């Protein structure tokens, strides 16, 4: 187990190097000159521009820029944004908001996804199952920004039940609607996954054996159907945390939340390579760590899986 863990952690190094290089290259390849854009409508002062370029290493070849970024990143020095703020403090402001949003969405999709999935699976073919299936299909097929705008208009603008936008330092109520929107697609997937697992597990031979033992229906469902059905659901949920963090971009734009997604969006627009790469690096790390935790969890839940 220890060896396996070490190997997995060492594997993270090439993953992080590869993704950062790729992102850096993409930002570098963006059309337009970020320094020229900083001058806005005013004529570009070549001397000032050259100074800015050298300050942010923009005058050096791409690969040198990347290596310099890596060298600084190792000492946790991510440099400054074009506006002069340290990148670390920008990230420090954006991440807590997104983490809060992602966790709320996570709880929402986990709880409701599993509950509706169980109801659907246990009443397969009945009206409740059909309603749940149609609803989940609807949520999967409609894009997040459509659901987002509809809820925002109905609950925020028309009925004034919830705040329409979040703004700075959002609280629980501010983030409730965004979290529901963010988690809705994954919730629909979890409903379908849980439902399918239950309908297939319920006809397993060991479930029949359990009934033949004289166990009550409730016990059979709890111990043999649900326990086995939830293994893939738990792993799906774990893998989804990373997706929620990264996928918050659209939701944060709609509800004006100053989180990671929004910051990343602005940074891409301004061509700020350092900021973009820094944020993406952290997101990649979260993804990799989540998938490691999921794999560990899998071994705990399913005794057939052992890592050596």
């Amino acid at each position, binding site marked *: 187990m220890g060896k396996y863990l070490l190997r997995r952690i060492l594997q993270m190094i090439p993953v992080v190097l590869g993704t950062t290089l790729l992102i850096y290259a993409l930002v570098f390849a963006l059309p337009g000159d970020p320094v020229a854009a900083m001058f806005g409508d005013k004529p570009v002062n070549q001397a000032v521009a050259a100074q800015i370029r050298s300050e942010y290493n923009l005058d050096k070849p791409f690969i040198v820029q990347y290596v310099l970024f890596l060298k600084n990143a190792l000492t946790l020095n991510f440099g400054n944004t074009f506006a002069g703020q340290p990148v670390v403090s920008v990230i420090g402001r954006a991440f807590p908001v997104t983490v809060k949003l992602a966790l709320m969405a996570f709880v929402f999709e986990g709880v409701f996804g599993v509950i509706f999935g169980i109801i659907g699976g246990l009443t397969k073919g009945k009206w409740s199952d059909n309603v749940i299936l149609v609803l989940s299909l609807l949520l999967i097929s409609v894009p997040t920004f459509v659901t987002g705008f509809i809820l925002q208009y109905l609950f925020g603008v028309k009925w004034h039940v919830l705040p329409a936008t979040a703004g700075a330092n959002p609280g629980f109520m501010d983030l409730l609607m965004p979290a529901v929107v963010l988690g809705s697609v994954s919730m629909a997937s979890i409903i379908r996954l849980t439902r399918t697992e239950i309908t297939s597990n319920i*006809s*397993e*031979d*060991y479930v*029949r*054996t*359990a*009934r*033949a*033992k*004289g*166990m*009550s*229906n409730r*016990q059979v469902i709890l*111990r*043999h159907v649900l*326990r*086995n059905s939830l*293994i893939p659901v738990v792993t799906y949920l774990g893998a989804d945390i990373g997706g929620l963090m990264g996928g918050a971009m659209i939701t944060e734009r709609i509800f004006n939340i100053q989180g990671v997604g929004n910051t990343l969006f602005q940074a891409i627009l301004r061509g700020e390579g350092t900021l973009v790469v820094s944020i993406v690096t952290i997101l990649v790390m979260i993804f990799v760590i989540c998938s490691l935790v999921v794999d560990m969890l899998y071994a705990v*839940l*399913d*005794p*057939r899986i052992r890592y*050596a």
Partner: protein
Amino acid sequence: MSQEENMAVKADQQADVASSGPLLEVKDLKVDFTSDGRDVHAVRDASFSVYPGQWVAIVGESGSGKSTCAMSVLGLLPGTGRVVDGSIRLQGRELVGLGRKEYEDLRGSHMGLVPQDPMSNLNPVWRIGSQVKEALVANKMDVSREKRSRLAQELASSEDIKLRSSDDELFISSADLPGLLKAARQVLDEAGVPNPDKVMETFKGEWDVGSETRWGVARSLIRAGVGEDRAWGIAKAHVTGSDMNDRIAGLLSEAGLPDAATRARQYPHEFSGGMRQRALIAIGLASRPDLLIADEPTSALDVTVQKKILDHLKGLTDSLGTAVLFITHDLGLAAERAQHIVVMYKGQVVESGPSLEVLQHPQHPYTKRLVQAAPSLASQRIISAKQRGQDAERLMEHHVKGESTLERSEHVITVEHLTKEFKLPRKRELFKAVDDVSFSVKRGTTLAIVGESGSGKSTVANMVLHLLTPTSGTVTYENQDISGFKGHELMEFRRHVQPVFQNPYGSLDPMYSIYRSIEEPLRIHRIGDRKSREQRVRELLDMVEMPESVMGRYPNELSGGQRQRIAIARAMALNPDVIICDEAVSALDVLVQDQVLRLLNDLQAERGLSYLFITHDLAVVRQIADEVVVMQQGRLVEHATTDEVFDHPQRQYTRDLLDAIPGGKLRLGLD
């Protein structure tokens, strides 16, 4: 006589009537399934009874409705299945129409199940022990003492011990055991019993925690020569009742699992098939049901394991007074184990009666076919169509071919000092799957390799097929070492040596039509054009006696036997000299098995094929093989002609394999 006494007498009489009547009575049972909106009658007017303590076998091929009957008794019909008519009475109580709750009360405590497939019937995520525990908890079993049926109580009491109170049924606990053994040793010395060490050894073997009772301990001591009062004194002082974990271990060791306390903490995937089946037997009997339904309990297991497990189950159910409804497709097995046989065919009971009666004087045509086809009961090599003189023309053809083969060597395939080692995970030393095996296959004959699973016989087959590289030793085909074959030579080799594998469900690609499956080898070897290949496929289908209409169908639309015919047709497509059959008929019903064996035999006679036949079933060997190689733990332990092996087995292992053939010792009323 007062009124009260009168009532009591009446109640007694009623109880007597109930105990002498059948335990289970199924009358005119009709079970339907709904498929595509149509009703399919799976069971039609089936009637049979099981008396207390009796073994009754339901015999029939797959799809005959035998399992459906069993599941309707348990109220566990799958999918759309439902009882539409008839009655099922357990101890006089009608089961048809019972609600879910009432059924839950009956299952486990009144009727238990030992299911068919040990691989899929244990939940992979729970420990074995906790799955046994569920059965005990669900029926609120008292884990400290034995619950014995009245029949078993009477049997036990009629021996030299009289059961006095329910406390005499208390189990030994793991905490009791050391003290009990110490006291037993002491009392043996005091009583001057000769050879006390040996007696203690038998005690240790018999006194399983959570399984042996107080009176059992007293009986052992008295039989060893200890005075009655002293023996009971020790039993009372040191046998005080087990707890849950002891009882779980006791149940598992009763079912024949050694080292049960450790085993209980393991998961199903750490068990072999035989061990899982033992665990399932422990579960089925955990709540001491009056009726145990055993649905093909050993079909998925080796013959030797099958024998051990059934012997054990028989002993266990006899001592508990449990009646068993035994579902099987093997008539020999049924006749050997059950007192009463019910034969089912296409959803109907076609014959029922005492086992020997059914076997020796079968009335219904289907039963007659079944008796004739049962490989365990027939004892002759199949006579081919050619020998029956039906095909003189082909016989001539074969003669011409025979002359040309004479010029070549007598042995088609020779295996010399073949050894294969595998590396096991987390072990330094290599595992010898095959250890210095030598034999040869004579042209136009059948050599069978027999042995239990794990004896290395399939590994040999894979090496002969050039699918595995031997660690050392050689395989020669037509005097050429096959290890040097590459490219074109290997293609030629593959063309002449073809396999037929065990599982006809897995060896045909479900996405390929039957035509494409048979045509594929021709296409790979670039033989003929589209038209001639189609012609060849037609010929092949004709050869395996399948209609041409199956060409456009897919494997899932065919039965197991039909699929195996397709697999044989595919193997025959390239006109091979040698066919290697790896358990090619093991998964098939007796009647289908018989048909496939006859087909293989006729093909051999017509085309001078040589077979290397890998099997664990000696009954099949007798029907098809000329020579037999017996393998045990990777080594070749016996090599002789089939008759010699059957008539004068040299090794104990071979004798065990022969003894394990179900019904092998039964005599038949057929000519």
